[in-house]
């Protein structure tokens, strides 16, 4: 998981990419014959200093290795604070990444 966060003019712009195949039910049915092999990220959360800043439920129709961009109000946070992002997929596997606000 890559996380980039930039604070400028009171706005934190975040760009993050998760490394995940994001396979759909139809894709896996073609490939392995079993729809249940489909696996994709189902939930993503982001925190700074313990405060939730991102809460996202997702489905199989995000692209492979999905990229997310979002923005935050910058007043509460300062440069150097760490943004932690973590995801969980359909099979229960988790992944995380962190980035400093620059």
């Amino acid at each position: 998981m890559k996380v980039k966060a930039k604070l400028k003019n009171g706005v934190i712009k975040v760009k993050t990419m998760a490394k995940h195949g994001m396979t759909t039910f139809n894709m896996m049915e073609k490939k392995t014959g079993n729809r249940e092999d489909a696996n994709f990220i189902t939930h993503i959360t982001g925190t700074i200093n313990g405060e939730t800043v991102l809460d996202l439920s997702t489905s199989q129709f995000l692209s492979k290795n999905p990229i997310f961009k979002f923005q935050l109000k910058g007043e509460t946070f300062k440069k150097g604070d760490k943004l932690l992002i973590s995801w969980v997929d359909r099979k229960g596997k988790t992944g995380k990444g962190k980035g400093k606000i620059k």
Partner: protein
Amino acid sequence: MERRNFLNVTLGALALAVIPASVKAEDYRTTKPAVWSAHTVDDAIQAMYGSTTLIEKGVSLRAPDVASNGGAIPVDFSTDLDIKSIALYQDANPEAAVCVYTTNKYSINNYSVKIKMGKSGTITIVAEGNDGKLYAAKKTLEVALGGCEG
């Protein structure tokens, strides 16, 4: 069955009570599973908000008119309205829901994400206002090469 429901509700309420508001994260896949298995946009919106009355204003949506690769279509959406969630749906894939953002007090509601579409179709963004109304934006685009089967 009733007892089980009672337990679930009670435990859920307890769990919610214990978690401080700042770290409360709502996973719509667990709380509203019907949204994610709905096959049409209307069904998904009905399951999500209990209503399909959309007001088509206040939300902006940017996506290409023609997407050369259906495997990664960039979609940007934003709104200045006071909202509690914003979600993306499309009608080209077997199921309609793509993602739901729950906003928080730090959110500036301006998002970009890349999605997959199997064929040409319409993207619908629904922003759930704190006033209980549903604001929406729609865009129909052509997909040259479908991205869901590859």
